[in-house]
Structures are given as C-alpha cells and as structure tokens.
C-alpha cells in the first residue's frame, strides 16, 4: 500500500464523484465547477503517469480556457438558476440504465485475465516537455500544421454564426 496507490484511489474516487456531480447538479454553474474539479483529478492521474506536461496543459486549456468559456456563456445567458425542466421519468431512467449497462458491458468485455502492471511513477521522464516538443515538431509536424486549418475553419465558423446583424 504505497503512496502512489493511495493517490490513485483518492484521485479516482474524486474524479468519479465529481463527474457524477457534473451530470446530476440542477444548476449548470455547479456542474461546470465540478467538471473543473474532475479535470484536476484527471490531471493528478496524468502526473501519476509521468505525463507532467499534459497535466499542466489539461489544467490550462481545459480547466482554464474551455471551462471559463463555458462559465462565460452560462453567465451571458444567465442560466445560473435551475430552469431546466426534467425529461419524462421513463426516458430518464432508461437513459440512466443504458449508461450503466454500457459501463458494465465495456468493463466485462475489456477485462483481461492477466493485465500488465504499470510501474511506479517517476521512472523515466519521457512525459517532459522537451521530448513532447521534439516529437511534435519532427514526425507530428504535419498534423500539427493541419490542426491550424481546423482552428481556422472553427474561427471562421464561430464568426459566421455568432456575428450580430443578420
């Protein structure tokens, strides 16, 4: 029962709990906050797996930028009160059950008898930024460039759609 195992269990519990909260809170603002919490938990996992850079990026990009964007939109529409009316009961329950089923089926399907073991964290530093950077700008340069087109189109789209006046 070493420290990393404890950390794992703690973070996992946190992640699951907070993500559950995300989908159960009435008030969207709470959901957002719980989602951020989830991201923190996941970043913690990243660190446990020597993905330090990703952990940081996750916090900056997701918890930082994206979630703030969400909050911003919510505030803009001042949806920060429980306005959402419920689905009808049957659909709600069947949906919940379906989600549970999916989980069970996937776990049952992907459970391997003799799983490989992950070593303790800290062994090797391949998750460091210089390694990632090197890979990103050598063999992954093409997708990197192409993602710019993705952003470009997203930008154009955002403008086209949300620009006021017709």
């Amino acid at each position, binding site marked *: 029962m070493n420290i990393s195992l404890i950390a794992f269990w703690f973070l996992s519990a946190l992640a699951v709990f907070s993500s559950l909260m995300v989908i159960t809170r009435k008030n969207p603002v709470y959901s957002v906050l719980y989602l951020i919490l989830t991201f923190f938990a996941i970043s913690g996992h990243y660190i446990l797996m020597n993905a330090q850079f990703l952990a940081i990026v996750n916090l900056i990009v997701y918890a930082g930028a994206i979630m703030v964007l969400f909050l911003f939109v919510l505030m803009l529409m001042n949806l920060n009160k429980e306005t959402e009316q419920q689905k009808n009961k049957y659909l709600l329950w069947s949906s919940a059950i379906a989600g549970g089923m999916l989980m069970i089926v996937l776990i049952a399907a992907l459970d*391997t008898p003799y799983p490989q073991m992950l070593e303790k964290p800290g062994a090797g530093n391949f998750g460091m930024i210089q390694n990632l950077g090197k890979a990103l700008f050598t063999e992954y340069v093409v997708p990197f460039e192409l993602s710019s087109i993705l952003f470009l189109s997203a930008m154009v789209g955002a403008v086209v759609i949300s620009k006021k006046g017709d």
Partner: protein
Amino acid sequence: MNLIIFGGLLGVLMMFAGILLKDKRQVSMVALLLMVALAVLNAWEMNHGPVFHVNTADMLATSRFNLLLNEIMLGACVIYFLLSGRDIEKVGNYVAEYYALIFFIFTGVGIATSYTNLLMLFLGIEIISIPLYILTGADKRNLKSVEAALKYFLMGSFSTGIMLMGIALIYGAGGSFLLSKFNLQFTPISYNLVGGLLLILVSMAFKVSAVPFHFWTPDVYDGAPTVFTSFMATIVKVAAFVAFIKLFEGSYGIIQEKWQLVISIIIALTLLIGNITAVFQQSVKRMLAYSSIAQAGFMLFALFAFNFWAREGIVLYAAAYSLATIGMFAVLARMEDFSFEGFNGFAKKEPVVAFAATIFLLSLAGIPITAGFFSKYYMVASALAGGGKYLWLLVLAMLCASVSVYYYFRVIQAMYFKTGDAVAHAVTPAFKYLLVAVAALVIILGVMPQALLQYLYF
C-alpha cells in the same frame, strides 16, 4: 497530398476574395475557378505525383484508388458549384466564408481519404465535421436550420467521443496508431483491439449514417439549407465512406467472420429502415434524406467484402450517387414547394428539367441505362463474389431496391402524370443545359462504366 495542401491554401484565398470582392456572383466565379484548379491539381497528382513532397512520417499515403475518388468528389463539387452557386449566394451574407469552409472541408476530405494513422483519421473527420456544423446552421434566422445545427453538433461530437475511446483502446492493444501496425496476428486477439475497432466502427457508421446510428441524418438534411444538404449528402458522405473503407481494408481481414456478421446486420437494418421509412414521407427533401440512408446501405456492401468488385463498385457508386443526388437537389432547391404535390405537372412547365430529374431518379432507383444500375450491380456482385453465404442479405437488398422504386417514382408520377402547377424559380437556360449535361453523364456512365473505371488502373 495536393488536395490537402491546396485545399487549405485556396480556402484562405477564398476568404481574401470575400474581403476584396463585394459582388456575390464574382465570389462564386472565383470559387468555381479555384475548385476547378483544385480538381486539376488532384488530377495532376494522379499522373505526375504531388507538387510538394512532404515527409508525412507515414501518416498519409495516397493511392490511385483514393485519388480517383477525390477526383470524383472534386468533379462533383465543380458541378455542384455550377448548378447551385446561385443558391449558395441566397443562403446568407458570408458567401465567401461558405466557399472557404467548403475548401477546408476538402482538406479534411484529402486527409480522411489518404490517412494511414488514426490520428490523421481523427483530424480529417473533425476538419470535415466542424465546418459542416457551421454550414448546417448557416441560415441563422431559420429555426429549422438552427435546430439541425444543434442536433448535428451534439450528436457529432458524441460520436467523436466514441471514436476517441475506440482509438485509445486500439492504441492500448497495438501500441501504435498506424493502420499498418494493427498486429492482430497474435492470439488470442486482444479484447482492447476488438472493442476499439467496434467503437470506431460505430462512430464511422454514424458518419456514413448507417442504421442504427443514422438518426441525425433525416433531421439534419431536412433542416440544413438545401444547397448544403446536397453537399453533405454527396461529397461528405462519399469521403466518410472512403475513410471507413481505408480503416477496414487493412485490418479486418483477420476477424472477418464476426465483422461480416456485424456489418451484414448494419446493412440489413440500414436498407430496411432507410427504404421503408422513405415510403411514407410527404416532403421530397426529407424523402431524399432517407433515400441517402438507403443508398448508404448499398455502399456499405463495399465494406462487407472488400474485393475487386467493391473497389470498382464504390468508385462507380460514388460517381453515380453524387451526380444524381446533386442534380436532384439542384432541381429541388429551385422548387417553390418541397412536398410531392409541389411537383405536380412539373413536366408540362419545365419539360427539360423534368426529364433530367427523371434520369436522376431512375439512376437513384438503379434502373438500367443509368449509372445507378451498375453501381448497385457492382455492390451486389462484390457481396456475392464470396459465395452465397449471405444470400438472404442480397435478396433483402434487392427487395429494398424495389421498394425504393416506389418513392422515387412517386416524384416521376407527380411530374408527368399528375396535373397541377409546380412553381420553380430562376430556371435559366444555362441551368437547363447543365442539368441535361449531367443527365447525359449519368447515362454515359450507365452504358459504359468502363469510361470511369479505367482510371483505377495503369
């Protein structure tokens, strides 16, 4: 490769054109020229290789097959611009941006048809999807358009999530994203891999709107501006198919039995739901949406057994289906009323247009002398080449084909045999000639498909 690079560049160019040119017509002209240029460049690559040699670290690899399909899509898009440019201008103020997005989509198409790495597949699909969300919602004031955009976006990103899960599992199994590294040889086949493939299958099935992942299709096609529906239903769908095929042609030979079963079920459902639901539609546009599902069912045969027939078949099908659908949507976009009654007595008013439309519908229904016949024919043949194991599926497919006759011919009946005053706007002579030319193309393909297929070789 050219398609990817120049698609992006020309897209950017279009945006500048939007700033420089105020007149929408001119923008359309420029777009048309650029699209022709793009087509030429792709054709150039077919014969002389790419213009710029980029080290893609074996993430992209072009083959004659996918280049030809790109060429078909580009050609279809040129025709699409010719026929529907006017309608694109009508959608909204950001004509240049719409065109630009279409060019960006072609970049995505280029990626999705030539990827050898799941990362590229993912990027390609996203580069195709994200602009489409926007085009769907382009008609901002129209609630239908908005609704369609929202639905499309939510479900699309949901399927993206599923795809990512699948990719992750595959990575876990093989330790690589390269298609070539699907090392399924060792037994027992890793569960992760099977699960991953399954999830990717699901998400791709979603993209090509195969039942039971098709639910977005009718609503989105119906809600989106008709021009963009036409684009989505043809070029994008074909691209998705090519991506789908590429994904499986290498990998799935190993676990064929299971896959064939899964895919045969999907095909059967697609054909049944698509065709049968289309029967009772009241709006031609929505009927075409369902028919596109049904057609997808036939195209899926290419995955069912990826052999010589399927290769030729999917090429032919892409061409036949795109031409006919684009033509039909172009006519539809001109109509006052999208319901079947809206076509009553159309042949009296616009005999030429009605004739062309008839050819398109016959082609969609797969009647001989039109391209549709041979495309369907090749698909069936591909499935039969492996022997009569799935005969029931073929019989079902054929029966569904005859069901499809029902709803396609309803339009013909309305146009020719019913009396009424169908109203069509802006039917210029140029438009008529173009339509007839496209119809002629459909017939030529229907009489000698070799004319197209020969480009697969040498």
